[in-house]
Protein backbone atom coordinates (compact mmCIF):
# COMPACT_ATOMS: atom_id res chain seq x y z
CA UNK A 1 0.00 0.00 0.00
CA UNK A 2 1.21 3.48 -0.89
CA UNK A 3 2.03 5.57 2.18
CA UNK A 4 -0.39 8.44 2.73
CA UNK A 5 0.79 12.06 2.57
CA UNK A 6 0.15 12.25 6.28
CA UNK A 7 2.50 9.38 7.04
CA UNK A 8 5.10 10.85 4.66
CA UNK A 9 4.80 14.13 6.52
CA UNK A 10 5.26 12.35 9.84
CA UNK A 11 8.19 10.39 8.54
CA UNK A 12 9.82 13.57 7.28
CA UNK A 13 9.27 15.78 10.30
CA UNK A 14 8.63 13.48 13.24
CA UNK A 15 11.18 10.73 13.05
CA UNK A 16 13.91 10.95 15.65
CA UNK A 17 17.62 11.61 15.57
CA UNK A 18 20.45 11.18 18.04
CA UNK A 19 20.10 14.21 20.33
CA UNK A 20 23.88 14.70 20.34
CA UNK A 21 23.43 16.30 16.91
CA UNK A 22 21.67 19.21 18.58
CA UNK A 23 24.35 19.53 21.24
CA UNK A 24 27.06 19.61 18.58
CA UNK A 25 25.12 22.25 16.66
CA UNK A 26 24.83 24.35 19.83
CA UNK A 27 28.57 24.29 20.43
CA UNK A 28 29.43 25.04 16.80
CA UNK A 29 26.99 27.96 16.63
CA UNK A 30 28.36 29.27 19.93
CA UNK A 31 31.85 29.35 18.43
CA UNK A 32 30.61 31.14 15.30
CA UNK A 33 28.65 33.64 17.39
CA UNK A 34 31.69 34.25 19.61
CA UNK A 35 33.82 35.16 16.60
CA UNK A 36 31.01 37.37 15.31
CA UNK A 37 30.70 39.17 18.60
CA UNK A 38 34.47 39.63 18.95
CA UNK A 39 34.65 41.28 15.55
CA UNK A 40 31.61 43.42 16.29
CA UNK A 41 32.96 44.46 19.69
CA UNK A 42 36.00 46.13 18.08
CA UNK A 43 33.81 49.03 16.95
CA UNK A 44 30.84 48.50 19.22
CA UNK A 45 30.19 52.18 19.95
CA UNK A 46 30.88 53.22 16.37
CA UNK A 47 28.12 50.94 15.12
CA UNK A 48 25.51 51.27 17.83
CA UNK A 49 25.97 54.42 19.92
CA UNK A 50 24.38 57.82 19.44
CA UNK A 51 27.77 59.25 18.57
CA UNK A 52 28.45 56.49 16.05
CA UNK A 53 27.75 56.29 12.33
CA UNK A 54 24.01 55.99 12.80
CA UNK A 55 22.07 57.60 15.63
CA UNK A 56 18.83 55.97 16.74
CA UNK A 57 16.53 58.37 14.90
CA UNK A 58 18.38 57.78 11.62
CA UNK A 59 18.49 54.04 12.26
CA UNK A 60 14.73 54.06 12.84
CA UNK A 61 14.17 56.02 9.63
CA UNK A 62 16.41 53.66 7.67
CA UNK A 63 14.47 50.49 8.44
CA UNK A 64 10.87 49.33 8.15
CA UNK A 65 8.49 50.72 10.75
CA UNK A 66 7.47 47.36 12.17
CA UNK A 67 10.96 46.27 13.11
CA UNK A 68 11.87 46.35 16.77
CA UNK A 69 15.12 46.57 18.64
CA UNK A 70 15.96 46.68 22.31
CA UNK A 71 18.42 49.41 21.37
CA UNK A 72 15.56 51.68 20.29
CA UNK A 73 14.27 51.48 23.87
CA UNK A 74 17.51 51.64 25.83
CA UNK A 75 19.08 55.02 26.43
CA UNK A 76 21.98 54.46 23.99
CA UNK A 77 24.71 55.82 26.25
CA UNK A 78 28.16 54.23 25.93
CA UNK A 79 27.85 52.75 29.44
CA UNK A 80 24.53 51.07 28.65
CA UNK A 81 25.87 49.76 25.39
CA UNK A 82 28.99 48.35 27.03
CA UNK A 83 26.82 46.65 29.65
CA UNK A 84 24.73 45.14 26.86
CA UNK A 85 27.90 43.80 25.24
CA UNK A 86 28.99 42.19 28.52
CA UNK A 87 25.54 40.69 29.00
CA UNK A 88 25.44 39.29 25.46
CA UNK A 89 28.92 37.79 25.94
CA UNK A 90 27.87 36.22 29.25
CA UNK A 91 24.71 34.75 27.71
CA UNK A 92 26.73 33.45 24.79
CA UNK A 93 29.10 31.65 27.16
CA UNK A 94 26.12 30.22 29.06
CA UNK A 95 24.60 29.09 25.77
CA UNK A 96 27.88 27.47 24.71
CA UNK A 97 28.25 25.47 27.91
CA UNK A 98 24.55 24.69 27.99
CA UNK A 99 23.43 26.55 31.08
CA UNK A 100 19.79 27.69 31.10
CA UNK A 101 20.08 26.84 27.45
CA UNK A 102 16.62 27.62 26.11
CA UNK A 103 16.39 30.90 27.98
CA UNK A 104 19.78 32.00 26.70
CA UNK A 105 18.96 30.88 23.15
CA UNK A 106 15.84 33.05 23.18
CA UNK A 107 17.84 35.97 24.58
CA UNK A 108 20.56 35.57 21.96
CA UNK A 109 17.97 35.60 19.20
CA UNK A 110 16.41 38.77 20.63
CA UNK A 111 19.85 40.40 20.91
CA UNK A 112 20.70 39.40 17.36
CA UNK A 113 17.47 40.83 15.97
CA UNK A 114 18.00 43.98 18.03
CA UNK A 115 21.52 44.47 16.70
CA UNK A 116 20.40 43.83 13.13
CA UNK A 117 17.62 46.38 13.39
CA UNK A 118 19.65 48.98 15.29
CA UNK A 119 22.13 49.29 12.44
CA UNK A 120 21.02 47.54 9.27
CA UNK A 121 24.03 48.69 7.25
CA UNK A 122 26.68 46.30 8.50
CA UNK A 123 25.27 42.84 7.87
CA UNK A 124 25.58 40.39 5.02
CA UNK A 125 23.80 37.24 3.89
CA UNK A 126 25.59 35.16 6.48
CA UNK A 127 24.11 37.27 9.26
CA UNK A 128 20.61 36.80 7.89
CA UNK A 129 21.13 33.05 7.95
CA UNK A 130 22.61 33.17 11.45
CA UNK A 131 19.56 35.08 12.70
CA UNK A 132 17.17 32.46 11.30
CA UNK A 133 19.37 29.65 12.64
CA UNK A 134 19.23 31.23 16.10
CA UNK A 135 15.46 31.38 15.87
CA UNK A 136 15.24 27.69 14.99
CA UNK A 137 17.68 26.79 17.76
CA UNK A 138 14.99 27.91 20.22
CA UNK A 139 12.95 24.86 19.24
CA UNK A 140 15.80 22.38 19.40
CA UNK A 141 16.63 20.23 22.42
CA UNK A 142 20.11 21.67 22.70
CA UNK A 143 20.89 20.74 26.26
CA UNK A 144 20.30 17.00 26.39
CA UNK A 145 24.01 16.32 25.92
CA UNK A 146 27.31 17.96 26.69
CA UNK A 147 25.74 20.70 28.77
CA UNK A 148 25.63 21.93 32.33
CA UNK A 149 21.85 21.64 32.19
CA UNK A 150 22.23 17.90 31.56
CA UNK A 151 24.69 17.56 34.47
CA UNK A 152 22.37 19.48 36.79
CA UNK A 153 19.36 17.40 35.67
CA UNK A 154 21.28 14.20 36.20
CA UNK A 155 22.36 15.17 39.73
CA UNK A 156 18.92 16.43 40.65
CA UNK A 157 16.99 13.47 39.26
CA UNK A 158 19.69 10.87 39.87
CA UNK A 159 19.10 9.31 36.46
CA UNK A 160 21.69 6.77 35.39
CA UNK A 161 23.21 7.09 31.94
CA UNK A 162 21.01 5.14 29.54
CA UNK A 163 22.46 2.44 27.30
CA UNK A 164 21.35 4.16 24.13
CA UNK A 165 21.63 7.90 23.56
CA UNK A 166 18.46 9.96 23.96
CA UNK A 167 16.71 10.85 20.78
CA UNK A 168 14.82 13.92 19.69
CA UNK A 169 12.41 14.91 16.97
CA UNK A 170 14.01 15.87 13.70
CA UNK A 171 11.57 18.64 12.71
CA UNK A 172 13.61 21.67 13.90
CA UNK A 173 16.57 20.27 11.98
CA UNK A 174 14.35 19.79 8.92
CA UNK A 175 13.27 23.43 9.07
CA UNK A 176 16.91 24.47 9.20
CA UNK A 177 17.69 22.30 6.19
CA UNK A 178 14.71 23.64 4.26
CA UNK A 179 15.85 27.16 5.08
CA UNK A 180 19.20 26.30 3.51
CA UNK A 181 17.54 24.98 0.36
CA UNK A 182 15.47 28.14 0.26
CA UNK A 183 18.67 30.19 0.47
CA UNK A 184 20.34 28.36 -2.42
CA UNK A 185 17.25 28.67 -4.58
CA UNK A 186 16.92 32.35 -3.81
CA UNK A 187 20.58 32.88 -4.72
CA UNK A 188 19.97 31.13 -8.04
CA UNK A 189 16.96 33.32 -8.82
CA UNK A 190 18.94 36.46 -7.98
CA UNK A 191 21.89 35.35 -10.06
CA UNK A 192 19.81 34.48 -13.09
CA UNK A 193 18.29 37.95 -13.03
CA UNK A 194 21.75 39.42 -13.72
CA UNK A 195 23.20 39.64 -17.20
CA UNK A 196 26.69 38.50 -16.20
CA UNK A 197 25.46 35.36 -14.49
CA UNK A 198 23.33 34.50 -17.50
CA UNK A 199 26.07 35.10 -20.07
CA UNK A 200 28.60 33.24 -17.96
CA UNK A 201 31.12 36.00 -17.30
CA UNK A 202 30.27 36.85 -13.67
CA UNK A 203 33.13 34.84 -12.15
CA UNK A 204 35.77 36.92 -13.93
CA UNK A 205 34.41 39.96 -12.05
CA UNK A 206 33.84 38.24 -8.71
CA UNK A 207 37.44 37.00 -8.46
CA UNK A 208 38.67 40.55 -8.99
CA UNK A 209 36.56 42.33 -6.39
CA UNK A 210 38.79 44.13 -3.89
CA UNK A 211 36.91 43.17 -0.76
CA UNK A 212 36.53 39.47 -1.34
CA UNK A 213 39.48 38.36 -3.42
CA UNK A 214 43.17 38.82 -3.76
CA UNK A 215 44.13 37.88 -0.23
CA UNK A 216 44.04 34.13 -0.50
CA UNK A 217 44.60 31.93 -3.51
CA UNK A 218 44.88 34.53 -6.30
CA UNK A 219 42.29 33.03 -8.58
CA UNK A 220 42.47 35.95 -10.99
CA UNK A 221 46.10 35.01 -11.73
CA UNK A 222 45.47 31.30 -11.88
CA UNK A 223 42.39 31.41 -14.05
CA UNK A 224 43.94 32.80 -17.17
CA UNK A 225 40.93 31.60 -19.05
CA UNK A 226 39.07 32.55 -22.11
CA UNK A 227 35.33 32.97 -22.25
CA UNK A 228 34.58 29.25 -22.13
CA UNK A 229 36.56 28.81 -18.91
CA UNK A 230 34.72 31.63 -17.18
CA UNK A 231 31.40 30.38 -18.46
CA UNK A 232 32.09 26.93 -17.08
CA UNK A 233 32.94 28.36 -13.66
CA UNK A 234 30.01 30.77 -13.59
CA UNK A 235 27.38 28.31 -14.70
CA UNK A 236 28.78 25.52 -12.53
CA UNK A 237 28.39 27.84 -9.52
CA UNK A 238 24.72 28.25 -10.37
CA UNK A 239 24.53 24.53 -11.07
CA UNK A 240 25.97 23.68 -7.66
CA UNK A 241 23.43 25.90 -5.98
CA UNK A 242 20.53 24.30 -7.86
CA UNK A 243 21.92 20.88 -6.94
CA UNK A 244 22.28 21.82 -3.28
CA UNK A 245 18.74 23.19 -3.21
CA UNK A 246 17.02 20.16 -4.73
CA UNK A 247 19.13 17.02 -5.13
CA UNK A 248 20.11 17.04 -1.48
CA UNK A 249 16.59 15.80 -0.76
CA UNK A 250 17.03 12.72 -2.93
CA UNK A 251 18.24 9.97 -0.56
CA UNK A 252 20.12 8.03 -3.24
CA UNK A 253 22.46 10.93 -4.04
CA UNK A 254 22.38 12.86 -0.79
CA UNK A 255 25.80 11.96 0.56
CA UNK A 256 27.78 12.67 -2.62
CA UNK A 257 25.90 15.95 -2.99
CA UNK A 258 26.77 16.93 0.59
CA UNK A 259 30.45 16.13 0.07
CA UNK A 260 30.44 18.05 -3.22
CA UNK A 261 28.73 20.94 -1.46
CA UNK A 262 31.34 20.95 1.30
CA UNK A 263 34.15 20.94 -1.29
CA UNK A 264 32.35 23.75 -3.15
CA UNK A 265 32.16 25.89 0.00
CA UNK A 266 35.74 25.09 1.05
CA UNK A 267 36.84 26.13 -2.43
CA UNK A 268 35.13 29.48 -1.97
CA UNK A 269 36.54 29.80 1.57
CA UNK A 270 40.11 29.36 0.42
CA UNK A 271 39.81 31.75 -2.49
CA UNK A 272 37.58 34.53 -1.15
CA UNK A 273 37.19 36.58 2.01
CA UNK A 274 33.59 36.09 3.04
CA UNK A 275 34.04 36.09 6.81
CA UNK A 276 32.38 32.97 8.28
CA UNK A 277 29.78 32.48 5.59
CA UNK A 278 31.22 29.27 4.18
CA UNK A 279 31.68 27.70 7.63
CA UNK A 280 28.09 28.42 8.56
CA UNK A 281 26.89 26.96 5.26
CA UNK A 282 29.06 23.86 5.72
CA UNK A 283 27.73 23.44 9.24
CA UNK A 284 24.10 23.56 8.15
CA UNK A 285 24.86 21.42 5.10
CA UNK A 286 26.51 18.81 7.32
CA UNK A 287 23.29 18.36 9.29
CA UNK A 288 22.03 16.48 6.23
CA UNK A 289 24.52 13.76 7.10
CA UNK A 290 22.47 12.93 10.16
CA UNK A 291 20.34 9.89 9.53
CA UNK A 292 17.00 9.50 11.26
CA UNK A 293 17.31 6.75 13.86
CA UNK A 294 13.91 5.21 13.77
CA UNK A 295 11.43 5.96 11.04
CA UNK A 296 8.96 3.80 12.92
CA UNK A 297 9.25 6.01 15.98
CA UNK A 298 7.09 8.65 14.40
CA UNK A 299 4.20 7.45 16.50
CA UNK A 300 6.04 7.13 19.80
CA UNK A 301 9.01 9.46 19.92
CA UNK A 302 11.17 8.97 22.95
CA UNK A 303 11.61 12.66 23.65
CA UNK A 304 9.64 15.72 22.93
CA UNK A 305 11.50 18.79 21.73
Amino acid at each position, binding site marked *: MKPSSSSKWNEFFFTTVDARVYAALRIAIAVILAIHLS*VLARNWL*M*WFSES*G*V*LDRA*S*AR*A*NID*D*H*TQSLFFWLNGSPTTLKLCLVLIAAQLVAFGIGLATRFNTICLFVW*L*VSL*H*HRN*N*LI*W*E*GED*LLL*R*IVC*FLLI*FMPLSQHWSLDAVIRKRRDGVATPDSPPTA*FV*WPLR*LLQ*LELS*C*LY*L*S*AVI*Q*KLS*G*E*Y*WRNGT*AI*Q*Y*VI*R*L*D*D*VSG*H*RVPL*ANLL*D*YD*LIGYQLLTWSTVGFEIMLAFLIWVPQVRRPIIYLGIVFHLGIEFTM*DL*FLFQWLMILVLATHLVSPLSPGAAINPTK*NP
Partner: protein
Amino acid sequence: MSTKLKRHLTNVFIVAFLGLIFIDTYPGPGSAWKNLQNGVDPLLDFTGLWQGRWDLFAPDVDRQNHHIEVVAIHRDGERTVWRSPVWRDLSCFQTFVRIREVEFYDRIRQEWNSPAWPAFADYARRELIPPSETDSPIIEIELIEVIRPLADLRLPARQPPLPSRRSFYQQPLVP
Protein backbone atom coordinates in the same frame (compact mmCIF):
# COMPACT_ATOMS: atom_id res chain seq x y z
CA MET B 1 -0.57 19.58 27.20
CA SER B 2 -1.45 16.33 25.49
CA THR B 3 0.92 14.79 22.96
CA LYS B 4 -1.75 15.03 20.27
CA LEU B 5 -2.30 18.74 20.83
CA LYS B 6 1.43 19.31 20.93
CA ARG B 7 1.77 17.55 17.59
CA HIS B 8 -1.01 19.66 16.07
CA LEU B 9 0.61 22.87 17.29
CA THR B 10 3.97 21.76 15.94
CA ASN B 11 2.39 21.05 12.55
CA VAL B 12 0.81 24.49 12.49
CA PHE B 13 4.17 26.05 13.35
CA ILE B 14 5.98 24.10 10.62
CA VAL B 15 3.44 25.07 7.96
CA ALA B 16 3.42 28.72 9.10
CA PHE B 17 7.22 29.00 9.16
CA LEU B 18 7.69 27.40 5.76
CA GLY B 19 4.82 29.40 4.27
CA LEU B 20 6.24 32.67 5.56
CA ILE B 21 9.77 32.11 4.31
CA PHE B 22 8.44 31.01 0.92
CA ILE B 23 6.22 34.07 0.56
CA ASP B 24 8.97 36.39 1.76
CA THR B 25 11.74 34.96 -0.40
CA TYR B 26 10.32 34.26 -3.81
CA PRO B 27 9.17 36.72 -6.42
CA GLY B 28 5.69 35.63 -7.37
CA PRO B 29 3.58 36.54 -10.36
CA GLY B 30 1.21 39.48 -10.29
CA SER B 31 0.06 41.99 -7.76
CA ALA B 32 -1.77 39.41 -5.61
CA TRP B 33 1.57 37.88 -4.63
CA LYS B 34 3.02 41.31 -3.89
CA ASN B 35 0.00 42.06 -1.72
CA LEU B 36 0.55 38.80 0.09
CA GLN B 37 4.20 39.70 0.68
CA ASN B 38 3.18 43.12 1.95
CA GLY B 39 0.64 41.43 4.21
CA VAL B 40 3.18 39.21 5.95
CA ASP B 41 5.90 41.83 5.98
CA PRO B 42 4.93 43.50 9.30
CA LEU B 43 4.90 40.14 11.07
CA LEU B 44 8.30 39.17 9.68
CA ASP B 45 9.76 42.58 10.48
CA PHE B 46 8.47 42.48 14.02
CA THR B 47 9.68 38.96 14.73
CA GLY B 48 13.01 39.43 12.98
CA LEU B 49 12.32 36.54 10.63
CA TRP B 50 12.57 38.52 7.40
CA GLN B 51 14.74 36.79 4.86
CA GLY B 52 16.38 39.61 2.97
CA ARG B 53 17.92 39.00 -0.41
CA TRP B 54 20.45 36.26 -0.87
CA ASP B 55 22.03 38.15 -3.73
CA LEU B 56 25.63 36.87 -3.32
CA PHE B 57 27.29 39.07 -5.97
CA ALA B 58 24.13 39.17 -8.04
CA PRO B 59 22.85 40.58 -10.21
CA ASP B 60 25.47 43.13 -11.37
CA VAL B 61 28.80 42.15 -9.94
CA ASP B 62 30.85 44.86 -11.65
CA ARG B 63 29.07 47.59 -9.70
CA GLN B 64 30.45 46.28 -6.43
CA ASN B 65 34.08 47.31 -6.62
CA HIS B 66 34.24 50.71 -5.02
CA HIS B 67 35.31 52.83 -2.12
CA ILE B 68 33.76 55.80 -0.41
CA GLU B 69 35.22 59.29 -0.27
CA VAL B 70 34.14 61.93 2.20
CA VAL B 71 35.10 65.42 1.09
CA ALA B 72 35.02 68.33 3.51
CA ILE B 73 34.83 71.68 1.73
CA HIS B 74 36.19 74.56 3.78
CA ARG B 75 35.14 78.19 3.55
CA ASP B 76 38.48 79.16 2.01
CA GLY B 77 37.96 76.58 -0.73
CA GLU B 78 40.31 73.98 0.69
CA ARG B 79 39.11 70.39 0.39
CA THR B 80 40.00 67.73 2.91
CA VAL B 81 39.37 64.14 1.84
CA TRP B 82 38.94 60.87 3.72
CA ARG B 83 38.82 57.57 1.84
CA SER B 84 37.43 54.25 3.01
CA PRO B 85 39.99 51.44 2.90
CA VAL B 86 40.89 49.75 -0.35
CA TRP B 87 40.42 46.21 0.86
CA ARG B 88 42.86 44.72 -1.60
CA ASP B 89 45.67 46.62 0.16
CA LEU B 90 44.85 45.03 3.51
CA SER B 91 45.84 41.58 4.67
CA CYS B 92 43.44 38.68 4.85
CA PHE B 93 43.28 39.00 8.65
CA GLN B 94 42.69 42.76 8.53
CA THR B 95 39.80 42.31 6.11
CA PHE B 96 38.39 39.57 8.34
CA VAL B 97 38.33 41.69 11.49
CA ARG B 98 37.06 44.75 9.58
CA ILE B 99 34.27 42.86 7.82
CA ARG B 100 31.61 45.18 9.27
CA GLU B 101 33.32 48.17 7.67
CA VAL B 102 33.40 46.30 4.36
CA GLU B 103 29.64 45.87 4.61
CA PHE B 104 28.99 49.40 5.86
CA TYR B 105 30.85 51.14 3.05
CA ASP B 106 29.12 48.86 0.58
CA ARG B 107 25.63 49.58 1.93
CA ILE B 108 25.86 53.28 2.76
CA ARG B 109 26.05 54.34 -0.90
CA GLN B 110 22.79 52.61 -1.83
CA GLU B 111 19.83 54.86 -2.58
CA TRP B 112 17.50 52.98 -0.22
CA ASN B 113 19.80 53.85 2.67
CA SER B 114 19.49 57.60 2.05
CA PRO B 115 17.95 58.21 5.52
CA ALA B 116 21.35 57.21 6.94
CA TRP B 117 23.38 59.69 4.88
CA PRO B 118 23.04 62.76 7.13
CA ALA B 119 24.08 60.76 10.20
CA PHE B 120 27.09 59.30 8.40
CA ALA B 121 28.10 62.70 7.02
CA ASP B 122 27.94 64.08 10.53
CA TYR B 123 30.01 61.19 11.90
CA ALA B 124 32.54 61.58 9.10
CA ARG B 125 32.93 65.29 9.87
CA ARG B 126 33.53 64.55 13.56
CA GLU B 127 35.61 61.38 13.38
CA LEU B 128 37.01 60.71 9.93
CA ILE B 129 38.01 63.93 8.26
CA PRO B 130 41.66 64.64 9.05
CA PRO B 131 42.49 68.01 10.65
CA SER B 132 42.81 70.83 8.15
CA GLU B 133 46.04 72.80 7.77
CA THR B 134 44.04 76.01 7.94
CA ASP B 135 41.53 77.13 10.57
CA SER B 136 38.89 77.70 7.94
CA PRO B 137 35.56 76.12 8.98
CA ILE B 138 33.91 73.33 7.01
CA ILE B 139 30.91 74.54 5.04
CA GLU B 140 29.92 71.33 3.29
CA ILE B 141 30.38 67.58 3.52
CA GLU B 142 30.07 65.54 0.36
CA LEU B 143 29.79 61.74 0.15
CA ILE B 144 31.12 60.18 -3.04
CA GLU B 145 31.08 56.64 -4.37
CA VAL B 146 34.19 55.84 -6.41
CA ILE B 147 33.82 52.82 -8.68
CA ARG B 148 37.17 51.10 -8.96
CA PRO B 149 37.89 49.43 -12.31
CA LEU B 150 38.52 45.72 -12.07
CA ALA B 151 42.11 44.87 -12.89
CA ASP B 152 43.19 42.75 -15.86
CA LEU B 153 39.80 41.88 -17.23
CA ARG B 154 40.21 39.40 -20.05
CA LEU B 155 36.73 39.96 -21.32
CA PRO B 156 35.16 43.21 -22.45
CA ALA B 157 33.94 45.42 -19.61
CA ARG B 158 30.50 46.93 -19.52
CA GLN B 159 29.63 49.23 -22.42
CA PRO B 160 29.06 52.06 -21.84
CA PRO B 161 31.39 51.97 -18.83
CA LEU B 162 30.09 52.77 -15.37
CA PRO B 163 30.69 56.32 -14.16
CA SER B 164 33.83 56.30 -12.05
CA ARG B 165 32.60 58.81 -9.45
CA ARG B 166 29.14 59.54 -8.14
CA SER B 167 28.37 62.16 -5.54
CA PHE B 168 25.43 60.82 -3.59
CA TYR B 169 24.98 63.30 -0.77
CA GLN B 170 25.92 66.89 0.06
CA GLN B 171 25.41 68.27 3.53
CA PRO B 172 25.72 72.06 3.79
CA LEU B 173 26.85 73.20 7.23
CA VAL B 174 26.28 76.45 9.03
CA PRO B 175 29.70 77.36 10.44
